[in-house]
């Protein structure tokens, strides 16, 4: 029989390790922010935060270099809004269908299909978008290049939709049965129940779904890089190439000198991205908690 004291000691070590593992998540978040700051902060010795955020010119390799990220912010914004405009209505509609209307076996198949869509790597989606959607847009709209903000929006919509659909579907399914039964008892048709009662009750969860979908779009890198044309200028329409914050980092890091201003600027963009997604996810999580109560 194992001596009890030895076992107690072993268990004490294991339980401390478990506690540490839990805390590690917090540590990682803090570390990510700190290391971004560490490499990006040197930029702000030579340039003010305002100039960085609102400067209209991103010329990192000119002499002297200009590090204004407004074009990049607007590029991200344009692509994100376009993707949201497409994916939110379609995604919510699909979530309603799957949760409320689809028969059970179809529902399982659809949910699996959506999970598979979510699993497709972004580089593959970017590849397809670049090769099929790009030329199509070029021909249809008669523009010089098919790699535009619109292309980006459509492509990214496909990446946001699975997130929106699955989280919204969870929220709709979680609406208590009593709501539906009460509506039916008052003579409502299934559609009236779904639209007027269930959808309204699931609103916080659906809002969270939309925010998380948008958060995913904002953070997307590879697909965006491959389909939006990579022109770091202030966009004037959907049908011209743009550059997003994420694509800038990925595309230009290889060319930058470690420790130099360009390098720091890219890390500074990372800080901006980190803060944006931190806020979006934080608010979405708040809504999710409100919907679960």
């Amino acid at each position, binding site marked *: *029989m194992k001596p009890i004291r030895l*076992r107690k000691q072993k268990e004490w070590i294991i339980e401390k390790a478990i506690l540490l593992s839990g805390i590690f998540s917090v540590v990682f978040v803090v570390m990510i922010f700190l290391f971004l700051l560490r490499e990006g902060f040197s930029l702000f010795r030579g340039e003010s935060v305002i100039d960085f955020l609102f400067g209209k010119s991103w010329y990192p390799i000119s002499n002297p270099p200009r590090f204004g990220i407004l074009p990049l912010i607007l590029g991200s914004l344009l692509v994100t809004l376009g993707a949201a405009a497409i994916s939110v209505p379609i995604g919510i509609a699909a979530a309603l269908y799957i949760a409320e209307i689809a028969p059970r076996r179809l529902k399982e198949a659809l949910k699996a299909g959506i999970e598979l869509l979510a699993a497709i790597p972004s580089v593959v989606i970017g590849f397809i978008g670049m090769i099929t959607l790009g030329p199509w847009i070029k021909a249809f709209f008669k523009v010089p290049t098919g790699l535009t903000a619109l292309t980006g929006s459509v492509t990214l919509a496909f990446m946001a939709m699975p997130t929106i659909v699955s989280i919204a579907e969870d929220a709709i399914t979680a609406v208590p049965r009593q709501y539906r039964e009460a509506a039916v008892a008052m003579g409502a048709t299934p559609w009236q129940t779904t639209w007027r009662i269930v959808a309204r009750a699931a609103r916080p969860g659906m809002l969270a779904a939309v925010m998380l979908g948008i958060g995913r779009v904002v953070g997307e890198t590879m697909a965006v890089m491959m389909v939006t044309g990579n022109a770091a200028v202030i966009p004037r329409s959907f049908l011209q190439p743009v550059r997003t914050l994420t694509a800038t980092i990925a595309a230009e890091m290889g060319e930058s000198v470690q420790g130099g201003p360009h390098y720091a600027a890219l890390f500074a963009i990372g800080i901006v991205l980190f803060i944006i997604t931190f806020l979006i996810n934080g608010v979405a999580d708040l809504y999710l908690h409100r919907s679960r109560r």
Partner: protein
Amino acid sequence: MVEQSVKFSVRSFHVHYGHYNALRDLNLDIRANEIFTVIGPANSGKTTFLNSLNRLIDLVPASRCSGEIKLDGIDIRHGMEVEALRRKVGIVFALPLPLPISIFENVVYGLRMQGIREQRRLDEAVERSLTEAYLWEEVKDRLSTPAMNLSGGQQQRLCMARILAGQPDVLLFDEPTSGLDPISTARIEETMLILKDKYTIVLVTNNVAQAARVGERTAFFLMGEMIEVSETSKIFTTPADKRTSDYITGKFG
């Protein structure tokens, strides 16, 4: 009257769940080798009391206890390890709760946790405890089959064997027959009467008639307080408190 030794002594014992006072100023003794029954309506604190005797109450996140409970003169909170306490004080729950493993593994679970591994000792413990629980003949040929395949009554007896394997001092029963048919109920009650020679038994029951059948002393709990405690025959014929007689005669429940 032969003076029996005291198994549990409870003094000024209170339990709070957050702000809710579930058990107020409890003072009583439970004597060795007796069947002590606790009766009372729902939310009277019976299960809280039972769970305090083996410190399962600690699992409730917002619970706070004050006062003192001693087992054989030793404080159960400050004088011993909680695992040692729970091995001495076993509990059978209202629903049969076998673990999703084989019959054999269910019975030896507590022993394995103590570190006992020799097959001979485990085999011997299994046969002994299943016999004590009156289940051995029915399952001796299928010890390695899943325990979930047994009937409700058999599962409950398996739960008893599980505790007996560790040779405890006290057996706690929390409404053990509320989910069982009359025949299984009768068998469990018979088993309790036989077991009391070796063990101290504390039985919480919703079934007043069961207390009358089985208990030697009975305590009546109401809304977190113990109203009275005495010999079962006395409580049922001449209770000291009007609330006790109202409950027993069914005026409220």
